[in-house]
């Protein structure tokens, strides 16, 4: 009789994986594949954020499944990262020098911090699973507090910022020290606002953003129409994001496009007309928004709405018609850092400093094509702290339109959901509970230690 013990031929067990630098990086690649793949993760991930004021069809009926897809992919990503970090810490990676080991660890911590930063802003305190946690399958975990999650994020990013190189000459898509600092600045800024409101973090955000600005590694792309062009995918403005190539395509760009574009977009993610109308005419508006195409104004598009060009307009028409996007998905870019700096400096110093004004005006100046625009003038130090703060938030809304839920997160951390729109149906459904997405039902059902966010049924 043949032996009944099994010896697999086509795979290995996780316990023996991550035993070389290449295998660790293969785990990191998988962690990002979860987040950014054809039709999964952020490939179709705009939907949970459509309750803001930029998306057409935005409303405050936040469904019980809102954001569950992103919850799933973030935790799958974290699982891959934790496995690799544990292997590195256990000394499984042999034959590499300490610098390489540190950089491998720093990459893992960077990626883990990114995942938790997304989760904590969407869901609040979440189960905090790290490389040191016991197996979560047999050890159910409660939600950690928001501040515990931020502690891990800050410590991971601080480690990453200290060990990551300034650049990877042969690997422009990997996380760098600048990206770690840029995201850390955003983390501090968020911690300074809702829900933690730990205002001491404004200064840390200002400091971190300044370090990025002073690194000399990043600057704004001169012409605003070039920001999302493929040749600028890895700098000088883009600092880190999800990568795409012609071999690793992501979601259908049709989602973002009107039906009149190319062989036909699907118009799923369209721009709210009120938002478009409030946006002053400027070079940036033309670069980021498709308000007309081939001489036809959007009011004569079948969808009758404008669209955001960022994720379909700059890829080749072939790729567009081939239902495959080769566009990267920016997570942190230099314009964002400038705006973080401006906001943080204003709040940390009791009003707009000259450096804060200069930072935001870099963005405004480029947006206006370096001409004076009475519809959208530059900012000054004479503005009050509040005026300046509100203007920076508004500036973020335009500059970072449709980028990775940024507007939604700004709305949440500033608690302005009921102020950004006047639509009656929108306001009728508003409640303070809307600032958090529901914890996915499946997880709630299977782990009674988890508690649902207020306003959602258990």
């Amino acid at each position: 009789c043949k032996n009944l013990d099994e010896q697999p031929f086509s795979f290995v067990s996780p316990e023996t994986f991550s035993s070389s630098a290449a295998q660790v990086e293969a785990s990191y690649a998988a962690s990002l594949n979860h987040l950014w793949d054809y039709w999964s993760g952020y490939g179709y991930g705009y939907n949970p954020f459509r309750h803001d004021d930029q998306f057409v069809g935005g409303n405050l009926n936040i469904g019980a499944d809102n954001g569950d897809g992103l919850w799933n992919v973030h935790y799958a990503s974290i699982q891959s990262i934790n496995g690799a970090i544990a292997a590195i810490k256990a000394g499984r990676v042999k034959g590499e020098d300490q610098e390489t080991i540190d950089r491998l660890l720093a990459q893992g911590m960077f990626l883990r911090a990114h995942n938790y930063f997304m989760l904590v802003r969407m869901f609040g305190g979440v189960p905090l699973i790290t490389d040191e946690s016991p197996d979560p399958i047999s050890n159910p975990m409660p939600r950690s507090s928001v501040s515990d999650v931020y502690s891990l994020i800050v410590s991971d990013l601080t480690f990453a910022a200290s060990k990551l190189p300034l650049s990877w000459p042969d690997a422009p898509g990997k996380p760098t020290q600048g990206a770690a600092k840029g995201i850390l600045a955003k983390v501090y800024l968020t911690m300074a606002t809702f829900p933690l409101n730990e205002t001491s973090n404004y200064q840390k955000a200002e400091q971190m953003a300044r370090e990025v600005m002073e690194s000399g590694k990043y600057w704004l792309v001169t012409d605003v129409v070039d920001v999302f062009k493929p040749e600028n995918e890895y700098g000088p403005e883009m600092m880190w994001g999800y990568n795409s190539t012609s071999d690793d395509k992501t979601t259908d760009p049709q989602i973002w496009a009107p039906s009149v574009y190319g062989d036909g977009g699907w118009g799923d993610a369209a721009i709210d007309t009120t938002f478009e109308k409030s946006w002053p005419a400027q070079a940036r508006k033309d670069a980021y928004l498709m308000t007309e195409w081939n001489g036809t104004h959007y009011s004569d598009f079948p969808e009758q709405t404008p669209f955001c060009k960022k994720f379909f307009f700059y890829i080749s028409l072939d790729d567009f018609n081939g239902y495959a996007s080769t566009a990267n998905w920016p997570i942190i870019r230099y314009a964002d850092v400038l705006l973080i700096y401006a906001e943080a400096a204003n709040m940390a110093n009791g009003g707009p400093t000259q450096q804060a004004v200069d930072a935001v005006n870099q963005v405004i100046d480029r947006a206006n094509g370096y001409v004076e625009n009475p519809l959208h003038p530059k900012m000054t130090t004479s503005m009050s702290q509040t005026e300046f703060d509100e203007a920076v938030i508004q500036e973020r809304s335009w500059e970072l339109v449709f980028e990775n839920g940024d507007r939604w997160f700004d709305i949440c951390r500033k608690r302005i959901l009921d102020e950004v729109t006047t639509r009656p149906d929108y306001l009728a459904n508003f409640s303070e509970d809307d600032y958090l997405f529901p914890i996915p039902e499946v997880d709630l059902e299977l782990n009674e230690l988890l508690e649902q966010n207020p306003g959602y049924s258990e």
Partner: protein
Amino acid sequence: SNSYSQVTKFSLELENKTIREIISEIEEQSEFIFFYQKQQIDLDRKVSVHVKNEKIESILDKLFAGTNNIYFINNRQIVIGVSKEEKVRVPSVSVIEDAVQQKKEISGKVTDRNGLPLPGVTIIVKGSTQGTITNAEGKYTLSDVAEGDVLQFSFMGMETQEVNVSGKTNINLVMYESTIGIEEVIAIGYGTQKKSDITGSVSSVKGDELTQMPMQRVDQALQGRASGVLVLNTAGAPGAQTTIRVRGMNSINGGNNALVVIDGLQGGNLNSINPNDIESLEILKDASATAIYGSMGANGVILVTTKRGKKGKPTINYSYSYGSQSIRSKLDIMGAADYARTRNAFRATQNGSGTPVPIFTEQQIQELERTGGTDWQDEIYRIAPIQNHQLSMGGGTENMRYMVSGGYLDQQGILLNSEYERFTLRANFSADITEKVSFELNWGGSKEFGSSPPYGGGTALSFLGQAVNIAPRWDPTTPPYDANGNYNSHPVGYGAYDTWNPLAATVEPDIQNHTIRNNVNTYIEYEIIDGLKLKISGGAAISNVNDKSYYNSKTWEGKPVGGVVGYGTLTEQVNSHYQNSNILSYDKTFNSTHKLTAIAVAEQQYDKYQGSGLVASKFTVDQTGINDLGGADEISSKYSSVSERVINSYLGRVNYAYADKYMLTASYRADGSSVFGKNNKWGYFPSASLAWRVSKEPFVQNLNLFTNLKFRGSWGITGNQAISPYETIARMESGSDYPYNGGSSTNLGFRIASAANPNLKWESTTQLNVGLDASIFKGRLSTTVDIYKKKTEDLLLNRTLPRYTGLRSVIDNVGSVENKGVELSITGDPFVGAFRWNTGFNISWNRNKVLDLGENETLRFRTTYGGYSLKNGFMQLRVGEPFGQMYGYGTEGTWKESEATQAAKFGQLPGDIKYTDTNADGKINTEDIKIIGNSMPNFIFGWTNSLSYKNFDMTILIQGSKGNDIFNQGRIRLERGSEGTSARLLDRWTPENQNTDVPAFIDEKTRMDAALVSTINLGSGDSERLQRWVEDGSYVRLKNIVLAYNIPAGLTQKIGLGSAKLYISATNLITLTDYSGYDPEVSAYNRNDAQIGVDLSNYPTAKTFTFGIDVSF
């Protein structure tokens, strides 16, 4: 065949007895009856007989050695005659000469209803031992018959007839086939048993029943024929698989396919078998029958026995059929002009910021009215031919028998560019090497070629290029080709513009699926001592799959991108199954009342799978495509995989019968399988059953009513181990690639794909069955009733994990499911004789209930693929509820104008869909989700009829299902206001037509002016889980009707044929159903059985007319 004589064994110790005494001793010990003419046999001759467990032939050979007596055995009747040639011991048909003439002599000829002579018919004078048999020409002469005597004509497999001889000297008789009797021997797994001795629940279908109807595949042949067997044609495509379920569904992930055993080789594939090669099909249903297959038996077992050669001169059969298939029904789609008006009407609703311009001018609509536009269903469907050739030869000598057959099937599909072609060849050979040693070798091979454009949910790369789905949805105002002869694209701006030209999607893909199967099994059997035999068998089933596809530049998948074109796949698979069974059997009757059969088996099975494949694109040369992989710029995915599975088994079974009245069967099997966790490698599967043949009891025999009456009861445990190898081991899997380094390179990604579970073990199904077999009127009316209850425990379930673990689920033994049901079949022969009608009706009720799902109260199944706004959980399993539950939002038509106030509470206007507010909270949200349908039928039934009169035969099969719902997913897009083509849109709500479930086209301005706040929040991606799309899938179908004409024997013999039959048949001729999709027999894309009943635009069913001819030499 002389089945009784083949299974009955004698041990005689008779010293110096007369032939008369020996004959009466044999009659005493057995059911044999001797017929002879006194003057032809020396009854007082004394002989001694010493035999141990020998067949009747060898006893008779000894008994009449050295005399000129010959004998002929017809089942239980032994006729002794005298050889004309004075040749001794020739146990075959011969002429019996009458030496003496007294009274009168009767002679004549016996033929079958085709006029062919019947040799070997037994003719006896009723009430005497006087008789004879017919010779090779079917002729007989019987002397010494008194006026007023009655002659009884009997022949195995024919109705016995009685004729009064009064006034006659010549009696010619036509004999008719009888129904299958209870003495029939049927396969039970690792052996055979007389039907009357069976204690379990077994359905049997004989090969000649199957071949009465033209059919391509064995699985189709089972539909409607056996109770408790549900056959679902999941797609109408040529060569498509069917789903067979025996007594409901036990398992969610373990698979519910019945085990197929072909000539003893387990794990067979019904597709590899030519239906014409089948001697019999047995379906083992209750645990007493299936437990002998232990861990593979839980879903029932289908035993296929192929034909063997029979002793005698070669018989050659040839049959040919030609058929024509056409689409059974089309979807009801608007004509081009109606479509244009509907699109205009919808466009007019988009008046949020201005007055929209109509898409079609009135002039264009008039033109469309005139031309009719394009019927896309007509464009992609055709009338398709099907032809089938069969040739078989069989025969044998005293010690060797052979059967060789070949078949060729070529079926074009009704969808353009679809085809199935199959060559089959089979050679069965058996030999008696010595008196003690026999040998058999069976080889069956097939070569299949299949091709079809993608259809259904699972096969398409994208629903954009899925012709069956998109054709009815496409713009009927656009012709297939433009002025230059190129395929038209869908016009932009209205309709289903995100789709590809359906004709291009149908005819342009080049898809080729090749499968070669080789099945061989052989055994050698040695009779160690009287009744004790050892059979050593070995077999292998090896299939090679070689698939390729190429989507050229005219397809969605392969359209030009950056100057390069095409998309193609290559797949290679080798599946090997090896099996060795060593069977020790003991078969003995003691004191002619205790009948004992016992087996002990040691068996091992080994399976190996090897597969590899790749996906390539960006070809420079479209013409060569996937045939020149070097010309592909991109290999976008590649994989290879190897896996093994080992099963070691030990099993035993005892059958004991006392006086043919009380029967007992007990079996036990131990299976060790490699695929289970290291803590649970072995499973144990016992069974026991009892039967009582009440009809053998005097108090029932005195009633003179029952030919057979038997009560049966059984209990047993079976398993299901149909999980993949290595599921118990945590795995790190390649394939999650991502350009981690940025730039243009791709970096390989490895992810954690599953968690370990060393405790994983068998699903076990405990089944109780009670049954009754009864027949009355000399077997002309029979019924079988079975009641069963099955409980499956340790259900293999993908136990959902909280997603924060990073994994979706882990496979585990949690939960349990119950199936219970009643099966009833009735067969009867209302008419016998010249006009003959044999009819059989079977009906099965099965009820299924989930008893436990471990930690889960609910298991959700994603049902659909992109573009339908159906996300998670449409199909759900919940504790206390059956399989197939559909969950969604209730809909109750549309709001009427008189209900405007109530509608407004939900922010709705008259004409909007009226959703069911299940919890009456004034909101429609996920809390209102309820059960909106169930895909499991209340009952299924089949009704077979076979009629004959003179040279005509007719066979009718009616079959159906009652009470199952189908979620008609195709309608979601077909009836979507913004793009739909369905004729139902013409019935949409208007103030004049308020009694409809098709919502109104309400314009944006009206809605804005109404300033209502909607309280309807169906959840993103779940807005189409609507009761609207659930339809009753009940149907009654005239599945098959055949009219055959048997050419009279006189005519066939003139042209040198033995017999010839011509027939015409129709398949799916009439279907009564309310279902509006292509066919109610759908299911499709069943990643597991909890999802059956969603119509994902499957290949439509064909209606087929066939002409055929069968000849034999």
